């Protein structure tokens, strides 16, 4: 599924994270570590947002300039603190995503109702609260039939009801064959985790499943 080799990431010459070799099979994997340990950095590197040294591939497709389109079709990323252009509305972004990542309109409607996005679809993003932004970001992440979904602190700013619904969506998508890589400082993830990854002292270690 996800293969990482000879990976290293530095900021201004300072090493942040080094992973000689890592293979993650299909399933749900959680990533933990202290603040500033490099969790978000790793997730962004896998999502193709940040540059890095080394190789990352999903289903054998390496993230490189030549495979950029193929690779980015396989992975979706939802940031911990999502931001979007203030002048757009949810419906604009949903239409844009669905034009790019084929997905049934009825499934998008179900997702929007489930996450509570349909209530503010026609309101400009500039007026959103952090919870609304998070819901929109999660909805956009679930559009398309990607192989890997990366959720960075997915339960941040969400109400209890939405947290439960998010757990249901994750379970459904997991059953459909999607893999998840997620970080969370809260204990809201109520699904079986296949691998627990821990980042400490610039290194990544694999722990036994803890949830």
């Amino acid at each position, binding site marked *: 599924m996800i293969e990482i080799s000879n990976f290293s990431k530095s*900021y201004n010459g300072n090493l942040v994270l080094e992973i000689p070799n890592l293979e993650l099979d299909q399933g749900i994997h959680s990533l933990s570590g202290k603040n500033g340990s490099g969790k978000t950095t790793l997730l962004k590197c896998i999502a193709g947002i940040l*540059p890095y040294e080394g190789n990352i591939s999903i289903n054998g497709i390496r993230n490189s*300039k030549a495979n950029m*389109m193929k690779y*980015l079709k396989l992975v979706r*990323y939802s940031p911990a603190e999502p931001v979007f252009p203030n*002048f757009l509305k949810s419906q604009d972004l949903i239409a844009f995503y669905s034009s790019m990542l084929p997905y049934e309109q009825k499934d998008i409607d179900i997702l929007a109702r489930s996450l509570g996005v349909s209530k503010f679809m026609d309101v400009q993003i500039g*007026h959103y609260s952090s919870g609304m932004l998070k819901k929109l970001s999660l909805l956009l992440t679930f559009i398309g039939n990607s192989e890997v979904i990366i959720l960075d602190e997915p339960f941040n700013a969400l109400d209890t009801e939405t947290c439960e619904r998010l757990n249901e969506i994750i379970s459904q998508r997991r059953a459909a064959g999607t893999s998840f890589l997620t970080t969370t400082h809260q204990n809201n993830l109520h699904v079986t985790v296949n691998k627990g990854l821990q980042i400490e002292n610039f290194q990544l270690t694999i722990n036994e499943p803890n949830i």
Partner: protein
Amino acid sequence: MNLIYRLSFKLMVVQFYKRNAGLLFFFFIAFFGIIPPQYLVTTHLGLIHAQIDSPLLSLCVLVFWASYSIRCTNFICTTNNKYWDSTTSYFRSFSPKTIRINLLLVFSVVYLPITIYGILVASVAFFEENSIYGSYVLTSLLIITLCNTIYAYHFSQGRKTLVFPYRNIYPSIKINFHFNWILLSYYWRERTKVVLLLKVISYVGFNLFIIRNKDFFREDYFVLFLLLLGSFNSLLIFSGQKFLEERAQFLRNLPISLFARGMMNLITAIVYFIPELLFLIGMNHEILTYESKFLYYTFLISHFVLQFALLYSENFSYWKYIKYLVVMLFGFQMMIAVVPIYIVIVINLILSAVIFHDSYLKYEHQTSLMKD
């Protein structure tokens, strides 16, 4: 003055004029700057007469007044919304009458330029014994003012869908969200006054070079002005690139090819400089040939595209970017002195493509350095 009025004045009126300074300056230049002083009164009287005599023009003016009122009300409502938890809850502790009077005053002051012009039109109509038209103008202004105040009042009370169906439709040009338009939408929606100011600079500069000093026109000076114009626009490009890498960072996680990402930049430049092309075509046909007008338009585009691509080659801070622009300006000036402009355009475009292709995926935005 009562505290509520002072607070409203600072939060809404002052901020409104600060934010719309570019737009107002644009209208000021359009109405007063380009008309010779000796013809100022007669030109404006002519405009007012045309408005009184032509129902179509009169309707257009009314639509403009209504649109501007929406902008004013939207600003008032958005400011209310923005300070909802702090200031507006304070507003809501006042009696409905005080809030209504306060909103009426705020709207009247932000709408003042239109009101003054409307009263001027009505005065001319009354002076010429066309009291029907004069009354029509005054009644329209009164209705616009009252309706907007009532809407703002209902909005401040949390009843956001009442009275007017047209909340949030301004700017009335709805650009459907498409990847190719995202940067243009950003410029139009969030950098309006800067864009309008830059267009005014273009217009005034072209006017000075091609119309006012046509007898002393020199192409090398004109190209130097284009370079300066390109440098001014670079600051807008800088904010555009920051926008793409911060607010629109989600685009990096979407399957959009490098070619499409580069083309978006080119399309933005082509559309962005259409007003300059229209200025050049519309101004004078004697000094510059159509060929050279298109050449200068293409030069501006290539400069824009190159600046955008270069921003991906390094993490520029604002001041570093300014220094770099000054160096670039001198570099280009020397280059243009020895190389024909069409070769400079070709070099710009090739360099842009190479730099963008090479550096886009290696680029890392500065704010991400602080992220966990």
